[in-house]
């Protein structure tokens, strides 16, 4: 049985290093320590898994590529993230080279379960080194790990590290520079019958696929762990260019049939054998000093998952987050606004009057500025998200909210993406990546924009002002709140509906680790915020820019001599579109002017307000009050007032449901890697918005309101 041992005695020049390991093992902290800011975040082609790479400078002339693979618990993959990590490790991805060295980051405080993945990785026969991370926690647990012995038992170098304090990093760099020698010996056995079948499969794989024995052994175990019959289609999916010959598939299915007949559970036998082996290693290498310190995590959890205090704490954190997003963010938002206004003024003074100046000031600067203004909110949101994630509280929110989410068929992990969408659907949709089941993730993405984002606030504010000019603050807040509740209700209903129909899947399994609480690394938090805002600004500089130009063209052309302000607008493409739209939106109580507003706000919802200022011939500096007065004075040709209370309500309801946001569509397109889903989302939300606004207006009229 030569598949038992693997030896690599020729350390070659390492060019590519892959970081792998369980989630919560501190993998990303190590990645940050290696690469500092020389990081690149992109996507793997064909999938929506984030691809994080960076470079490590070993010496002046020695640069090593570092890949930060998504965290995984096992090689028997369950999510696109894990699938990709496995494919890279096995050298199956098209554009990512097979790593020359694998650094497996292991949480020393959770050694037993972390070694399970190590045991699987050993099968692959890759040159590997263990970063035994979070050694400080081991001491706190009152334990001692014999590193030299562990290294010997695993057959590979083991480097104790505390990545958050940069400890052990130099030693790892030295190993990368020199290469490693590994000697693996499989220390575990399954039942003889099973071993025989595995060996049979190994021979088949060597013969038909030309694999080496180590790879064949790992592959054989993965194949045997497949529950259903193997089909080639499954293997072709994703970025891996890998599928088996027909003959081999037939043989594999025969082996599985035989096992089933004998009543052998190949899938669990290997798991149990591995854990048995791990136990024996731990017995040799870990000593319990019985000097256990106080378990801080236990004490914190006693509060934050308490039946009463848990909710108080939870609501407190959420309230603080939204308070920061909606109040503190106002200051930098004002600065950004002032900056763009000043830039616009400067261009106005510098350039001669004409269409170019008009395009730059009213198209580009106003359009891009209107989106960049949300940067502070996004920064604060991601500050909180990475803080919650890094401390371990995020897992607790999923833990306490899972029951609620399961009512509509979702997972506790869908909670944060939906919550984030109150600030902005874009980061919300991006944070849905942590959801393992692709269908659940899609449902979360589809309903996320129904949560009222901050861009709707300006629309709600002006509409409430027109609706009830004399209302008290409490009354205004009440209407505002009911809009939020309406959005949440819609999201729940649609999620439930999608789970029942279009995206039916088995109830997702909820197995989640509750990691110990840890101090966040501020360095990592800052890097995370920087990454997200860079992606956001990049989009503002490309897609939003292009759309701002298009919208400006639509609103400025064709030009008619002598026409000014709203008359010119009515004659423009956008005006004609608004006029063409009037018959459709008349049942909702809107005229062509509101139609232009709807078209204009397609770029971003808050653009509705500035578009309406142009429609009503107000100069840009007009405040909310002027616009309100203009709205109140607006009439239909027959003299009826346009903005009746019912129309205001109907408009607000329309904005609650409609996907009036190009950036969201762009991000959904990127995240789902298809144009069908964003299109579907746009259409379903448009129908929902139309019907809801129609119901408000028509039912309201039937009941005698105006």
């Amino acid at each position: 049985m030569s598949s038992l041992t693997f030896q690599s005695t020729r350390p070659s020049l390492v060019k590519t290093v892959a970081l792998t390991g369980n989630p919560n093992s501190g993998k990303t902290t190590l990645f940050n320590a290696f690469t500092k800011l020389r990081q690149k975040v992109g996507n793997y082609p064909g999938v929506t898994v984030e691809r994080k790479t960076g470079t490590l400078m070993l010496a002046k002339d020695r640069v090593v590529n570092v890949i930060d693979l998504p965290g995984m618990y096992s090689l028997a993959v369950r999510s696109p993230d894990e699938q990709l990590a496995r494919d890279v490790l096995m050298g199956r991805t098209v554009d990512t080279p097979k790593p020359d060295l694998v650094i497996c980051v292991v949480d020393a405080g959770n050694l037993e379960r972390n070694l399970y993945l190590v045991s699987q990785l050993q099968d692959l026969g890759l040159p590997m080194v263990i970063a035994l991370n979070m050694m400080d926690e081991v001491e706190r647990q009152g334990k001692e790990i014999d590193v030299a012995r562990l290294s010997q038992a695993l057959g590979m170098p083991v480097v104790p590290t505390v990545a958050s304090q940069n400890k052990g990093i130099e030693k790892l760099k030295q190993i990368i520079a020199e290469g490693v020698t590994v000697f693996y010996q499989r220390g575990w056995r399954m039942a003889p019958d099973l071993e025989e079948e595995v060996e049979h499969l190994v021979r088949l794989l060597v013969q038909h696929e030309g694999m080496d024995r180590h790879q064949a052994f790992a592959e054989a175990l993965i194949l045997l762990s497949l529950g259903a019959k193997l089909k080639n289609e499954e293997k072709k999916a994703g970025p891996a260019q890998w599928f088996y010959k027909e003959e081999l598939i037939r043989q594999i299915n025969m082996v599985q049939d035989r096992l089933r007949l004998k009543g052998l559970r190949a899938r669990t036998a290997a798991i149990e054998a591995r854990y048995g082996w791990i136990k024996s290693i731990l017995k040799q290498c870990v000593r319990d000093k019985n000097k256990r310190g106080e378990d801080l995590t236990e004490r914190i959890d006693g509060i934050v998952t308490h039946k009463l205090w848990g909710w108080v704490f939870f609501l407190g954190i959420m309230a603080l987050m939204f308070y920061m997003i909606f109040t503190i963010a106002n200051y930098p938002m004002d600065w950004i606004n002032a900056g763009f206004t000043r830039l616009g003024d400067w261009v106005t003074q510098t350039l001669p009057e004409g269409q170019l100046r008009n395009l730059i000031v009213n198209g580009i600067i106003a359009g891009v500025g209107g989106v960049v203004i949300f940067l502070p909110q996004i920064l604060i949101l991601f500050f909180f998200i990475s803080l919650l994630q890094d401390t371990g509280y995020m897992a607790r929110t999923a833990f306490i909210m899972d029951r609620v989410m399961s009512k509509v068929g979702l997972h506790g992990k869908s909670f944060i993406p939906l919550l984030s969408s109150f600030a902005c659907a874009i980061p919300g949709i991006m944070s849905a990546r942590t959801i393992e089941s692709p269908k659940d993730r899609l449902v979360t993405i589809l309903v996320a924009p129904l949560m009222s984002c901050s861009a709707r606030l300006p629309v709600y504010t002006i509409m409430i002002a027109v609706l009830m000019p004399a209302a008290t603050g409490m009354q205004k807040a009440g209407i505002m709140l009911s809009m939020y509740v309406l959005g949440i209700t819609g999201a729940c209903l649609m999620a439930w509906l999608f789970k029942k129909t279009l995206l039916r899947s088995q109830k997702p399994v909820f197995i989640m680790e509750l990691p110990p609480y840890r101090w966040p690394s501020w360095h990592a938090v800052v890097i995370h915020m920087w990454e997200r805002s860079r992606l956001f600004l990049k989009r503002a500089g490309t897609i939003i820019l292009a759309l701002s130009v298009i919208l400006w063209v639509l609103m400025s052309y064709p030009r008619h001599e002598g026409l000014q302000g709203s008359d010119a607008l009515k004659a423009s493409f956008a005006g004609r579109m608004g006029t063409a739209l009037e018959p459709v939106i008349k049942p909702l109580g809107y005229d062509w002017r509101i139609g232009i507003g709807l078209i204009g706000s397609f770029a971003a919802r808050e653009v509705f307000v500035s578009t309406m200022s142009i429609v009503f011939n107000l100069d840009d500096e007009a405040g909310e009050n002027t616009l309100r007065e203009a709205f109140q004075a607006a009439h239909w040709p027959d003299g009826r007032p346009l903005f009746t209370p019912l129309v205001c309500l109907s408009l607000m309801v329309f904005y609650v449901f409609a996907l009036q946001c190009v950036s969201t569509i762009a991000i959904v397109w990127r995240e789902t890697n298809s144009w069908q889903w964003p299109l579907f989302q746009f259409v379903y939300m448009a129908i929902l918005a139309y019907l809801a606004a129609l119901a408000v207006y028509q039912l309201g009229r039937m009941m005698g309101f105006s």
Partner: protein
Amino acid sequence: MPENCKTISLNKMSVGQKGRIREFVVESDDCERIEEMGVTPGEQVEVVRYAPLGDPIEIKIRGYHLSLRKEEAALIQVEVLS
């Protein structure tokens, strides 16, 4: 194991109770993932708490904390130790 040991499913255990995993009632993909997370027959398990709304459960196994829904916990038979 003495014969008089009580065997119940994991979701029926009370907070603080310890037990030894005996078996999974069915074999499925989900059970495999649970096993991969270290919940294997013969291993000792402790119920740490139930979530504020009664579901999911938090258990301690192999020195770490794991949460799973009652629905899945119902598939796991446990011999009660204390």
